[in-house]
Each structure stands twice: as C-alpha cells, then as structure tokens.
C-alpha cells in the first residue's frame, strides 16, 4: 500500500535499567514502523514498556541498543541543537504527568515552545489563545497550574503540544485525568488532527480510546505482542 519511508522506524530497541543482576529490560527488542498520517494506539499492562518506548520515539530518551530513524534520520547522529529542533517543531509531546512549568500562566506555558522557535510575541500569543480555546480553556488562560484541576492542566498540556502544529503528536495516557466528556472532546480533537494529515500516537489502557485509533499495538514485558489494524476505523 505504501512506498513512502516510515516517519517512525524503530529497530531492535532495547532499554535496560540498572546493572548486572538487578537490571531489568523495559524494552526487550522492539521493532515498530509508523507511517505518516497514521493514528496508532499503544496498549498494554502497566510496566510493559509503553512510556519507555514513547519517550524514545519523542527523542526524550535514548536506547541501550537498537536504532531509531525519525523521518529517515538516525537519532543518534543528531547533535543537541538538531534534537532541540526535532523536539520543538516536529513533535508535540503530551505527558502523562502534564509537565507544566510551575507558577506560570496557562497561556505562557502554551507559548513557551513557540518562543523557543523564535515565533514573534503577537503571533504566538494568538496561536496560544486559539489552542486554549480549542481545548475549552478560553476562560482559564491566565490561571497558573496550581489553580487548575488535573483535567484542565492536561488540556493546557494538549494545547501546548498542538499550538506548534507538529507533524507528530505523541500522547502518553492523555485521558487518564479526564472525565468522560473531556475524554470525548479530546478524542474528537485527535480525530481532527489526524484527519488533517498528522501522525498521532496515543498510549492508553482504555478500550474506547483505542477504538478511535486506526491501528492498535499491544505490548507486554517490553515486547510487542500484537499489531493490528482497527477494522472499523480504517476506511
């Protein structure tokens, strides 16, 4: 079906924590290719290595062994400044634990990645406000993280990832802190983003979240145990 090179191409990924007898393999040899425009859900029990894999895909962590090509470029061959550009422009990462900057307003948090990209103040303010509006926080833009509920903080994190218009959206259990209404809203948002041609990878343990993806990858003990297309979603 596709002759293009995959956006994400992970080969023989091994991630080991600790040394000697005490060491554990968070990833025990993972191969995963994801093409542009795909919508992938990664599922699996807790501790199966989902976050570890996602952090590597997001260029936030490195593997113990294996290779990772992002858009055809081996990640280990990139220097610090190239990695900063990848993290800032190519990837939008939504963390399980939000990772907002403390004592800083929602809008300033959303603006931050754009500031590092050199986008002008007016432009990034506009885009940040728009992104916050999209996630339904138009009335909370000047609130600091401690003044927001978990769900609201998660939506600020989503807005921050969306505002840079990344080609690749990576989300680690983004609905964990959300109620069912917010979850539905966020999934609609992911649908729209994916419909616009961007690649979306979501970690989840909820079936209804996985049901929205077009492809489901299941993991256990640091390996992929199944990789299936979602019949109902793939046209």
């Amino acid at each position, binding site marked *: 079906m596709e002759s293009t090179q995959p956006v994400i191409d992970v080969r023989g990924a091994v991630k080991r924590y600790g040394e000697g007898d005490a060491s554990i393999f968070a990833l025990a040899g993972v191969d995963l290719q994801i093409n542009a425009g795909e919508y992938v859900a990664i599922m699996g029990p807790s501790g199966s290595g989902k976050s570890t894999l996602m952090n590597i895909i997001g260029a936030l962590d490195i593997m113990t062994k294996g290779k990772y090509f992002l858009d055809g470029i081996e990640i280990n061959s990139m220097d610090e400044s190239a990695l900063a550009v990848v993290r800032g422009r190519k990837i939008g990462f939504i963390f399980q634990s939000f990772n907002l900057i403390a*004592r800083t307003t929602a809008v300033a948090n959303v603006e931050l990645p754009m500031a590092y990209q050199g986008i002008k103040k007016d432009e990034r303010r506009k885009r940040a406000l728009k992104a916050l509006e999209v996630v339904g926080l138009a009335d909370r833009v000047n609130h600091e993280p401690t003044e927001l509920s978990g769900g609201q903080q998660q939506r600020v994190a989503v807005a921050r990832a969306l505002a840079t218009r990344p080609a690749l959206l990576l989300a680690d259990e983004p609905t964990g802190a959300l109620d069912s209404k917010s979850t539905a809203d966020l999934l609609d948002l992911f649908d729209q983003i994916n419909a616009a041609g961007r690649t979306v990878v979501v970690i989840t343990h909820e079936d209804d979240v996985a049901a929205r993806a077009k492809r489901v990858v299941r993991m256990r003990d640091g390996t992929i145990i199944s990789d299936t297309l979602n019949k109902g979603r793939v046209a």
Partner: protein
Amino acid sequence: MNILEIVRFALRGLTTNKLRTTLTTLGIAIGVASVIILIAVGNGSSKQIQASIDKLGTNTITINSTRGGFGRRAAAAGTSSKPLTVSDAVALSSPVNAPDIKQAAPITSASGTCTVGTSSTTPGTFYGTWPSWFEASNTTIQKGSYFTNDDVVQGRHVAIIGATTASDLFGTDNPIGQTMRCSGIPFTIIGLSSVKGTTGFSDGDSLVVAPLTAVQRSLTGYNNLSSIVVEAKSAKVQDLAQTEINTIMDAQHRIKNVNKRDYRTLNQASLLATSNSNSSVFTVLLGVVAAISLLVGGIGITNIMLVTVIERTREIGIRKAIGAPKAAILSQFLIEATILSLVGGGIGVIMGYIGSHFKIIGIQPIIVPSSVFLAFGVSVLIGLFFGGYPASRAASLRPIEALRYE
C-alpha cells in the same frame, strides 16, 4: 529565539520565585556589606592610631637609658654604663654639634599621689623637665602659663597639670594659683594643659609637669634622668638628627662599640611604622573575618540554589522536552544568576556605605575602595558559579533524566 526573549525569561524566573530571589539577594548583600564594613573598621582604627601618634609630635626622638633595664642589652652594657645626665641634654642642644636638632629636654619621671585637701589623684605622667619639653612633645597650655628657664634655675615648685588631674583635684574649680601636694611636696599650679585625649590605655591628660630641678631635688634625686626628648628641626632631617644624637651620645658616654650602647633611641617614625604594621595586622584579621562572612553568605546562596535545584532541574527538563536549545537554557539561568548577584552585590555596597557612617566599637569606619570591588567581585562570582553550575549540569541531561530528577 533572541537574547531579549531570554532576558525576559530570566526576569520572569526571578519574579515568579520571589522568596528564593529575596533570600539569595539578601545573602549576597549581607556578605558584601559585612566585608566592606569590617575592612572599613580596620582601616578606620589604623587611621585613628596614626592620628593620635601625630598628636604626640612627629619630629621627636626619645632617648632612654638601658642601664638597669632588662634584657641582653642591659647586661652587655654592664657596670661601665652611665646614666643619662643633664650634660647629655646640654650637649645635644649645641647648635654646632647638632645643627639639625631644635632642642632637647631632659626628663625625670616621678611617681606618687597628689592631694588637695581630701581630693587626691595619681598622675599617669609626672615629669620634671625643661620648658623646651612642651614644644618637643606638642603640649600646649589652655589656661595660665608655662614655667620658664628661670623657674628651672631657681628650682621653683610650680607645675602645669592636665585636665584629668585638674578635675580629680579641683572638680570644676579653677586650679590656677592653687597649691597641691605631690608625695608631700607642695607645687603651685600655674597652668592647665590642652586636652590630649586618650592613646590606647593611657590618659594623656592625667599629667603633672614641673621644673626639672624642683622634682630632682625633692623627689627623684640628681642622678636619675629617665629620658631625654629631642626635637628635630623638621621631619625631613629626622635621620640627620638621629645620627647627631648617636655621635654626641657615644662621645658623652665613651661608647667604643656601637653594639654596646647604654642608651636607646626611639623616634616617632619608627613608632608610626610599628603601629601601622600593628593596625595592618588588625585589618588583615578583620579581612579574614569578612572573607569568612562572605563565604558563609556564599554557602547560604548555594543552599538556596541547591534546595531549588530539584524544581529547577525538572523545569529545565520540561523546557528541553518542548524544544529549548541548551544555549537558551544556559543563558537564561546565567542571566538570572547575574541579575541576582549584581542586585545583591549592589544592595550590599549601599548597605556597606550606609553602615560605615556609624561608629562601631568606638571606631569611625573609613571605606577602602578596593574592598568594595573585592567584595562585589567575589559575590558576583559566587552567584554566577552557584547559579550557573547546577543549571549547566541540568541542561546537559537528557530531558527524561531531568524530568525524573529527585
């Protein structure tokens, strides 16, 4: 990402962490201020000592006998040594042999208690001398008159007293014309000397000065001069005067070996040098105390920085994860540290200047400009290092490591 943006981040970092910012600034400010003030106190005290030595008279050279003294010199001098005599003083006054000496005054030093009615006092200084002593020792009269050469020749029992002696004996009454008894010998007070103040532990105003002959005859005896005060014509010719003194005294005392002199000279210049080196030791000590306080301030700063390093490391992790280049992060944290230490140092300098206006343990501090630069420079370096180092370490971590930092 322009530099203005980074400066804005730094400022925001400082204003969003007000407590940390305040504590750090305060730590630096106190360190800097204490260094400036302590060194100023040291400097002030050395200036004060110098001023009081200046008051003693700068051109004077004092000759003491080593006879009957302690130490090797006295022993070496042995029995062949001679006491200081009035003829020594006369010889030193010779305009031919001692062209650079303005005048010389022999001194006999008495002790004892002076009484008037029921009041009594023990003068710290009780001299029998010549009128030339007053000029040589920079002593002036505020009331009454000096005694004269005629008083010396006649051995009249007249005296000049200092302010402390006067108030001990007469309270607020006018002492001029009154008679006191010192060790039972009556002296009529003819003059009151000007206030000299206190040098170290000795009160310069606890003073009785009378004609040499009168004191010798009734109290100390004729063979017992304690010193001769010589005044050089000017401070410039003090070295020449010193040489003339040695020549005359060696001849007077038949000294063949200059290492076996039976007298010793002490000039104000060497006294000044000694006191200067003493007070510079004091200044160095205070400097050490100041350096320690700067160090303590630095440790305080480090502490505050370390306490927040977990939070800051996580923040750096977040910033890196969303695409902040390492250089941008480093610049931000260095600018933060620079602003903190510059503002802290600046406040410290102001505090130091204000604090130096107040007397501290009786000493008026005088600021040493180099100490200001030193304190400021060191505090800025400390601030930069302890603000910059943890940040640079965190900025080198992978984002996920920084995010997990505990």
